[in-house]
């Protein structure tokens, strides 16, 4: 009897490099190896609006908001070690500021959005600042509670339109601006964050995640750096919020909805934590899926959870990490 055993072997492809920043490129094949995935991603995102109909174009805009939130969540969780459930806080802050500027002062959306992005990020960071000392689950819980808090204040004091909200805000000029604004923002944020995590500030943030005590012993204030990181994530989230209020021409307490805090996590789990592009991809899969499942009513959530559990159990590394591994390594079966 002959037992033939095989074992899976993995080998890095030729130009997998020693450091993340040093590339030794020589042939066009190697150039292509690096450039093709990026190009496919960018072109894919940019061409998407052209092949969709009106309804799905709107879905794309919403998916874009979740994508940007997922990116912010992934950045904080995988590169700073902060599990931030403040998605709703960011969306709410950005959305309310932008909407209110438009409603009360009559400023156009394209002016309100950048102002709200910045102001919202300052406020969100300021609110989260006292909690930055908290670790792990505690930071997650506190960041999750602020949006609930905000809703209750708005309702109790009946300010900013109270429970009804304010409608008939100015909307963006047309569906093309709507789509390309958010898509452009996603692409810019994605590459900016990818760059950032390998710059010095990014290395320090990753250091904080791995061992914050050693960072302190190296003479660096972890609070200062965490604040910077939260501010960066808030910028992305608040942009999403500001954009959302002018997408529907409406602001209200549902801008603080839990979905904005929770769905990004799902997108990260599916797309692959720490890959940055994965969560974006995850959001672009999950949001339309959620839309398609609308017919199932409450059952939608159940299906949703099943998919998530499936990913956590069978592919915990997520889609993107899986694909990247396949792309960067040869795999073959070796006889033992």
């Amino acid at each position, binding site marked *: 009897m002959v037992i033939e055993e095989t074992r899976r072997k993995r080998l890095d492809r030729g130009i997998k490099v*020693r*450091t993340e920043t040093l590339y030794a490129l020589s042939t066009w094949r190697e150039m292509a190896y690096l450039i093709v995935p990026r190009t496919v991603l960018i072109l894919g995102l940019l061409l998407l609006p052209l092949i969709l109909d009106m309804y799905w174009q709107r879905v794309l805009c919403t998916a874009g908001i979740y994508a940007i939130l997922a990116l912010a969540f992934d950045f904080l969780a995988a590169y700073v070690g902060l599990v931030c459930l403040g998605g709703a806080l960011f969306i709410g802050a950005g959305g309310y500021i932008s909407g209110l500027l438009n409603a009360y002062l009559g400023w156009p959306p394209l002016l309100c959005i950048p102002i709200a992005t910045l102001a919202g990020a300052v406020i969100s960071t300021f609110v989260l600042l006292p909690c930055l000392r908290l670790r792990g689950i505690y930071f997650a819980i506190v960041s999750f509670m602020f949006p609930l808090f905000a809703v209750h204040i708005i309702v109790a004091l009946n300010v900013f339109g109270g429970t009804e909200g304010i409608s008939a805000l100015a909307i963006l000029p047309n569906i093309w601006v709507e789509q390309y604004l958010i898509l452009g923002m996603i692409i810019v944020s994605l590459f900016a964050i990818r760059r950032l995590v390998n710059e010095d500030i990014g290395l320090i943030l990753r250091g904080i995640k791995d061992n914050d005590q050693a960072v302190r*012993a*190296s*003479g660096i*204030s972890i609070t200062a750096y965490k604040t910077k990181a939260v501010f960066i994530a808030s910028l992305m989230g608040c942009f999403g919020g500001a954009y959302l209020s002018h997408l529907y021409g409406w602001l209200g307490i549902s801008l603080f909805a839990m979905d904005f805090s929770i769905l990004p996590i799902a997108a990260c789990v599916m797309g692959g934590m720490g890959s940055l592009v994965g969560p974006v991809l995850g959001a672009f899969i999950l949001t339309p899926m959620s839309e398609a499942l609308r017919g199932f009513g409450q059952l939608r959530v159940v299906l949703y959870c099943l998919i998530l559990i499936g990913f956590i159990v069978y592919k915990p590394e997520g889609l993107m990490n899986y694909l990247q591994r396949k792309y960067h390594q040869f795999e073959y079966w070796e006889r033992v």
Partner: protein
Amino acid sequence: MDGEALLQVKNISKSFGGVKAVMDVNLSLFKGEILGIIGPNGSGKTTLVNLITGFVRPDSGEVLFKGKKITGIQPHKIANLGLTRTFQIMRPYHSLSAFKNLIVPLNSPRVRRSRGGRLGDRDAVAIDILEEIGFQRDAYVPYKTASSLPLGYLKRLELARCIAMGPEIIICDEIFSGLSMAEIATMVPVLEKLEMEGVTIMMIEHRLRELFRLVNRVIVMNFGEKLAEGIPEEVMKKQDVRKAYLGTEVDNVGG
């Protein structure tokens, strides 16, 4: 030793719940010396380091660095004064390559200041430091991910993190433990070189034989208290020190 102490610890105490980890300890560290701190497990050595470097707040007592009180100051500010430490439990930034680990201290305000705000090629500086401390550049060790490094290199990396700060004082918390004799033999010159450059070193160590070759002076701790202080040969002759160490390495020392 005479002259003003670089670092002075005055009547410092700390308890955790009922455990008196450090009790009323006094010590002075003089510029340019290597001071050894020894003592059985749980005698409060690491807690003492934490108290000096601001990671733990004392219940009472104070620490003076160059005559200025540093108790109550945040750890990163103390590090920026040039008072650095290694950690007994090493956790490198495991997702980063070894030399990228050093980018963190190289970005500290202290290093920025000393370089006039211009940092230059940090990667090159980091690799140079690592090479000096025994990471073979030719074998690409500095480029390996920290999580894949063996213990000997991790201990070096801890020390390198301090060296990158351009420190005045380095407190080493058991950087020899778990290393082979050969590995220690390659670490010793690094410490001697630092001493020659004028860096003051405080070494906490269980490896007495190796320690005694390096230090000028040693302090013995037991149950959070300072038990004895002096030059190694004499301290190890004392009855109570032998008792505290009974059954441990004291026989090997030949005191």
